[in-house]
């Protein structure tokens, strides 16, 4: 036993080779590996800048009517149709009232994205809260699940009308006419779409609750609230992410469907969905008016979806290691 290295070596635990890194650096480096997510994030940053900074660069007012310059085609149509009515002052054309296409797209994006994000966040908050409570508190499970059934069967249109009747005035007072309507629509969209999230979260919580680390947390005196916040929520992040990505899409689309049915924002408040809905009757002559907002919606939804995929991988320390 003289020549052998100290035998303790043989029994020593394997020590992870890579040095520990800061948590966020770690998340970032994992995230970077997901090319789809990077492209998605890139696009989202772009589109966000586009709608936030856009109005300062392209200063035409989206609401300004110009009857002399209406029905202008986008610049690119000149490529194949030399007779098309194009104008560099309106690179993406203008609509039947002469509103500039590009500034409308910017303004519409602002509101669509705002509605999408806000409704999504609200959906998540409601869905997660209900899901966690019904999964964690046994007594609440039955009532909350019945509540979910109730909301599943609530018709959205009457709900919206009721909300408008009761809350428009106070909200208008508090947030101004457009802000008030925004709050209303976001709330109604969220109120009618949180149920799947709640169900999924509940299922996951029910399973997680039986895991030993939750028991362990109880045994070291962690209060229920902290068990939820520290132990349960971070572990249901992944299904929440999935709901979030779908939720954004649903919110943008629901808003546009409301516009289509005529119960959305007032006419001087453009959103992508509204632009799309308004342009449908003219899509043969002016396909760009449906394509531009349509593509914007689809790309945003796609980008968010990929971003969600990447984030889910990056935020989960288990996959991050691999």
């Amino acid at each position, binding site marked *: 036993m003289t020549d052998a290295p100290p035998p303790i070596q043989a029994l020593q635990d394997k020590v992870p080779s890579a040095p520990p890194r800061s948590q966020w650096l770690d998340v970032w480096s994992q995230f970077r590996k997901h090319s789809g997510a990077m492209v998605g994030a890139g696009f989202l940053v772009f589109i966000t800048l586009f709608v936030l900074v856009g109005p300062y660069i392209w200063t035409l007012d989206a609401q300004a009517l110009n009857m002399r310059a209406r*029905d202008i085609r986008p610049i690119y149509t000149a490529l194949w149709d030399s007779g098309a009515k194009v104008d560099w002052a309106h690179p993406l054309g203008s609509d039947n009232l002469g509103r500039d296409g590009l500034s409308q797209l910017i303004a519409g994006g602002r509101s669509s994205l705002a509605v999408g994000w806000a409704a999504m966040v609200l959906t998540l908050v409601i869905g997660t809260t209900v899901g966690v409570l019904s999964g964690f508190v046994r007594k609440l499970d039955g009532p909350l699940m019945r509540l979910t059934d109730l909301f599943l069967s609530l018709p959205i249109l009457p709900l919206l*009308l009721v909300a*408008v*009747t009761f809350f428009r*005035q106070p909200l208008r007072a508090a947030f101004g006419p457009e802000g008030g309507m925004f709050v209303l629509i976001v709330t109604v969209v969220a109120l009618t779409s949180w149920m799947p999230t709640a169900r999924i979260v509940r299922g996951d919580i029910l399973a997680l609750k039986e895991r030993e680390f939750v028991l362990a947390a109880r045994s070291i005196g962690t209060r229920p609230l902290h068990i939820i916040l520290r132990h349960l929520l971070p572990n249901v992040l992944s299904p929440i992410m999935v709901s979030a990505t779908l939720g954004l899409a649903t919110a943008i689309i629901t808003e546009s469907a409301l516009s289509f049915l*005529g119960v959305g924002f007032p*006419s*001087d408040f453009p959103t992508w969905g509204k632009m799309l809905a308004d342009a449908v009757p003219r899509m043969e002559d002016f396909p760009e008016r449906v394509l531009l907002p349509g593509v914007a919606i689809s790309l945003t939804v796609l980008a968010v979806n990929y971003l969600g995929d990447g984030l889910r991988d990056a935020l989960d320390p288990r996959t991050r290691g691999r």
Partner: protein
Amino acid sequence: ERGSDGDVKVLYWQAVSIMNPYLSSGTKDIEASSMVIEPLGRFNETGAMVPWLVDEIPTVTNGGVSADLTSITWKIKDGLTWSDGSAFTAEDVKFTADYCMDPDGGCQQLAKFDGVSSIEVLDPLTVKVTFERAMPNPYGPFMGAESPILQKAQFENCTGANAPTCSTENFYPVGTGPFVVEDFRPNDVITFKANDKFRDPAKPAFATMTLKGGGDVTSAARAVLETAEFDYAWNLQLAPDVLNSIAEGGKGQTVSAFGTLVERLEMNLTNPSAELPAETRATVAEPHPFLSDIRVRKALSMAIDRELLVEVGYGRAGRPTCNLVPAPAMFASDNTECFTQDLEGAKALLEEAGYVDSDGDGVREKDGVKLAILYQTSTNAVRQDFQLLIKDWWRQIGVETELRNIEGAVFFGGDPGSPDTFQKFYADVEMYANNFAGTDPQPYLAMYRCGNEPKPSSQWLGANINRYCDPEYDKLIDELGQTGELEKRAELAKKMNEMLTKESYTIVPLVDRGRVSAHSNSLGGVILNTWDSELWNVADWHRVK
């Protein structure tokens, strides 16, 4: 020859719910039923009365209307039969009136029977309607698509509270018209077949008719003009550029006609501010802070370019108007002063009224009152475009506008609990269209009587939306009610029309709206009529070879 032209397909983008116009006053329902059940007399495309189930229209001249204007006697055509083969008699006519006037029936055409005190059957083919008072216009009952004759035998057990339960009767009425219902699917599709008992043996040319409902206007237009899947599409209220582009499909053509429908801005003469208590908000107790000034109202009107509105919103289906009563011709005043937009004049008028932009925010104000307008209307693409254009013009004269659109079902619904009905008028300006039934504007003009305004004590019912009140005007209303002579009536009506419009700018008419419909190239005989049912002459429709 009857039935030789096969099937005709008609598309109504609002689906038909019921075949009984006494239980639904929806245009679609009235028009669909007009092919089956018919009134005694109709209005033709010029608004003139034509006898239908009678030999002539009763008048004072021919003795049909009593000299004191309190009764009218109809003489039914000889030998008319119902589609079930039984004879059409005066009893049926009397029954129809009783049916509608039954207090429990909820008859939707009750207004047609306004003032009727009794109906007598003089003989099997003669019926006399007696009124409580002199009726300068005694052609309410049994005239026009809204009051067709029901068969007594069929509806006998359906009066009063039973009216709604008779669904078979309401869906499959026995009539005298060119078609009979073969299959009725509420809110979806109706198939008709030619009435083999129809009085003219050569008509209708079509053996069957399919009346499809549902969908949206654009695709209805497409189905006729672009793909020719259907022969006729009703009421194509589309932006003119859209309609023109679809019409380029070349498979059909559009037809248009004008009636009395006027798209207008209503000025609120009372204060709708949310800060006021509910009892006085938007009531005569609180005059409007700036719209009560006629100069402001006039300036707002002057700023509007009606020609452009028509071009953007209605095209062939509209023309600018300054009148509340644009037709019939003898009632319409020749008021065209508003056709030219005058932004500078509007500004000057506001300056004169003391409204100046003192703080440089682009909005005029006086004594701390800003010219900030809440402008509401029902949700509808054309109205929304109008809102935008008008908002833009008003901005140019220094008036700030907030737009609001309200779902039609709420806006036009009379729910007293809702803050958003057009009657409550919790806004400064609102826009919608209204017309009058038939050709006589009297009840229409009588709406603007003092005290007839919606208010909390009347559950917000009342037709004087603007809260207009002028004793002079009320006098004219009474006078009109006493006058039987047509020229005199026309003069009075013109005067009243002008008081409401160009003299007070209480109502700011924008567009005289016509009807546009489309039919395929192979459908002949279509004569568009806005005074009666669009399908009034469906018996004459035929296939063009």
